[in-house]
């Protein structure tokens, strides 16, 4: 199969691919239903995958940037202390059925982890991960991919893009060698002929003009709107934890008699402790300041450094927020100059 080509993928064939992956002991993360809730979890077969969900909660970034990751370990104590680097052996992983918006986030993460010295652990994970995104046939109120340069059929960050065909099966766009290899597990496939009609993609109305954001944010720095809009914010870390692009972490040392280890753990700028100083002073004392930091980081500071927004418009933050904070709604209002 050739990179850049579109192939026909019957459900049976896809199941065969899952079987092959299971056989090779490849970790497959996909949207899976738990009670009424769809989360990104390990799956063994296609049947387990919730293909109908708009978005799974939880972030695919966990595949390359685990919530808890060991950076080093040590044994002994006092004079005879020995450090050990972990071997960067990441498990072969397929992230299956995430939406194109979320797939784009892997690029944004790479920008952070590799901008100065490459993060060997992150890179090892990324190298071992194949991203199979699933083109959208539906969108909800929280979606705003089109406002941040994405779309229901965007290919950026994906190795393979699947799109549902009318009358079943998928169209599979091979985007990278990794995608090629994955599809190869199914043996030879037929290119998709003209008869293969894609399910229509949803209309995702642009909610705001991203180009206007940096300027609008600069202007709004001292505006009361931050405090106003974050009154209902509970100050939990959910938005950052479910965000596919958020990459803040906290370093924790866990010591035990006879040794210990150093861990990298997800962190969130929404939490009061995020900037709390040992003295008790907190430069971001109020939730408004934290909300401002979150938004400005994504649409002002990050673009300044990497000339790309740290947001893919997936809307996971809004869906997960216990107080219904909506980035989309806020940015729409902001750019409409309020």
């Amino acid at each position, binding site marked *: 199969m050739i990179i850049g080509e579109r192939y026909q993928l019957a459900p049976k064939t896809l199941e065969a691919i899952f079987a092959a992956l299971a056989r090779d002991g490849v970790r497959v993360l996909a949207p899976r239903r738990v009670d009424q809730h769809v989360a990104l979890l390990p799956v063994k077969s296609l049947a387990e995958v919730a293909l109908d969900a708009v978005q799974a909660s939880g972030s695919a970034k966990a595949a390359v940037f685990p919530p808890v990751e060991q950076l080093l370990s040590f044994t002994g104590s006092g004079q005879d202390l020995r450090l050990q680097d972990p071997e960067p052996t990441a498990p072969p992983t397929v992230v299956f059925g995430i939406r194109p918006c979320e797939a784009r986030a892997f690029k944004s993460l790479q920008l952070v982890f590799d901008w100065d010295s490459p993060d060997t652990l992150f890179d090892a994970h990324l190298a071992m991960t194949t991203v199979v995104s699933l083109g959208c046939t539906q969108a909800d109120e929280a979606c705003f991919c089109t406002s941040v340069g994405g779309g229901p059929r965007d290919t950026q960050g994906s190795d393979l893009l699947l799109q549902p065909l009318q009358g079943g099966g998928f169209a599979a766009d091979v985007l990278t060698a990794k995608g090629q290899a994955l599809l190869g597990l199914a043996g030879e496939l037929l290119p998709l002929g003209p008869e293969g009609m894609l399910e229509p993609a949803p209309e995702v109305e642009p909610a705001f003009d991203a180009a206007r954001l940096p300027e609008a944010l600069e202007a709004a720095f001292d505006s009361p709107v931050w405090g106003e809009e974050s009154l209902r914010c509970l100050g939990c870390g959910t938005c950052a934890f479910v965000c596919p692009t958020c990459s803040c972490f906290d370093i924790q040392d866990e010591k035990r008699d006879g040794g210990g280890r150093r861990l990298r753990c997800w962190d969130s700028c929404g939490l009061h402790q995020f900037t709390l100083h040992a003295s*008790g002073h907190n430069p971001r004392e109020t939730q408004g300041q934290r909300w401002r930091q979150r938004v400005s980081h994504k649409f002002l500071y990050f673009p300044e450094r990497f000339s790309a927004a740290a947001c893919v418009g997936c809307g996971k933050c809004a869906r997960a927020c216990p107080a219904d904070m909506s980035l989309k709604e806020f940015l729409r209002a902001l750019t409409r100059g309020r």
Partner: protein
Amino acid sequence: MSRVGVFVCHCGENIGGTVDCAAVAAAAARLPGVVEAVDYKYMCSDPGQNLLKEAVKAKRLDGVVVAACSPRMHEPTFRRATEEAGLNPYQCEMANLREHCSWVHLKADSTTAKAVDLVRLQVEKVKRNKPLHPIRVPVTRRALVLGGGIAGIQAALDIANAGHEVILVEKSPSIGGHMSQLSETFPTLDCSQCILTPRMVEVARHPKVTLYTWSELERLEGFVGNFKATIRKKARKIDESICNGCGVCQQKCPVKKIPDEFNEGLSFRKAIYVPFPQAVPNKPVVDVANCTYYKTGKCKACEKYCDQKAIRLDQQDELVVHEVGAVVLATGFRTMPLERFPEYGYGVFPDVIDGLKFERLASASGPTGGAMKRPSDGRTPQTVVFIACAGSRDAQKGVPYCSKICCMYTAKHAMLYRHKVHGGRAVVFYMDVRAAGKSYDEFVRRAVEEDGVEYVRGRVSRVYQEDGKLVVKGADTLLGGEPVEIRADMVVLATAVQAHADAEPLAQKLHVSYDPYRFFAEAHPKLRPVETNTAGIFLAGACQAPRDIPESVAQASGAAVKVCGLFSQPELCREPVIAVVDRQPPPVFSHCTGCFLCQSACPYQAIEQEEIRSRKGELLKTVARVNPGLCQGCGTCVATCRTKAIDLQGYTNEQVFAEVMSL
């Protein structure tokens, strides 16, 4: 990095015989933070202690672990040694290699391994020890004695004679208590008044004693050594400083028919009165409830005839405040009201009386001048029945406990009666005779053998009236429950001893615990009988349990000694193992959220509120504070605190956590 020294004691063969002490020391030497680890035959010996002291100096140790016997044995020894070496004594901990290891395990690697663990545990702890300093709280050398009965008087005198000021508070118009009502006292039959009155006068005249009669404790704040007592002086309606106790007011008072409390209602008193002739102070008090003036606004006879012009009918209650360092509770007892015993006919038949009434009848200063005349018609009773345990040892209708004094005073009553009415018949119904005490049993024997008192072992089922006689129906259990019926002229009930009705509110006012019968509870039933669980508050007399006079007096002196002991140092010095609530720099101030859920967990009411205010004085935060004077260091509050804002010095979260993690 800490500089800990570990000293492993062989305790001769006691530890060395089972544990490889050298190996333990060697293992300890490898522990991070340990700069010195040695083993020695006897660490507690002088050379052993010197070894420790030298090492502290030479190796500049900041922590010491002595691996030897139980800390309950030698912790003071080694902490002293540590202190003498110039280190804070609380930088020394002990690993218990003897009681907890060598004495309970066989000689084996596993035993030595355990010893190493125990040492590591203490090393991890001591690394986190902080220098602690004994808690010093000032002591106000002034005592408050509540209750002016014989116990209170005795305690007050003992304390005052030791040179300390005493505030003596009595709620009735005169001190003296129940003892002043008694005729003669067992087992010597000497006159109660004769032995009590001098004491009453002595205490009232004592330069160190401030006496407040007709007064009650309003509230008590503070803690051991530092109480603040507010006393309500009820309005006597006279100016005590002017009144000379001439008694004219009493003569002139028109209100005559008020039952006399002192004589147990056997006589009457006026609306302005002195409770009894030997009262101290000998100053009258106006009975506002019965005084014509307060009912009608007219009369003022007393005021008119008082040539001292001492009457103050508009006088109001007054609150006085005293700082005191200790409190003695001597509030005494009451006898059980007998309404619940209709079968005895008390209150129905005037000639069924209780023990105290009999005391007044027998008393030379009583309404009959000591002549044995029964209440109903003043005739001399020819047959008198005494019923013991009226309410005592009766779980159903009375109290389950023994009132202790009844057996003795019943014997005394029967005797006194026989002395006064030679031909008379005295019958005592009893369950057992409990006459444990110096020359007590002899006394009862005398009643039976010399004074011919008849003792019938059995309970009385019922007392009723029949042609002018009181028929007492009972059974003689010694004769196989054979029914006994005695036609008496008077019946005397030995009513149960009870705590005062207001004992409970008082206990709560003072934060002292009390038993199910509302007697105040001692700190330990055997070893701390005159202390309460509230530091600085002591017990004397029948407010703790039924007591007779010698016991009350002994206990009062005991309480007095405790008070004097407390007053013997300029300040109280206590172990610094107490809880503290953290304080942080602004803007945090304290991690305490001020929920005060810890407050009810504290057995000592040691947790107070502290308001943290800005320089401008505006309230920033209300947080908990542990009163170092009250805290005893149990740490219950620490485990209750969700934010870990409270910690226990000597057993801090960091220390204990480190101990667990070391294993």
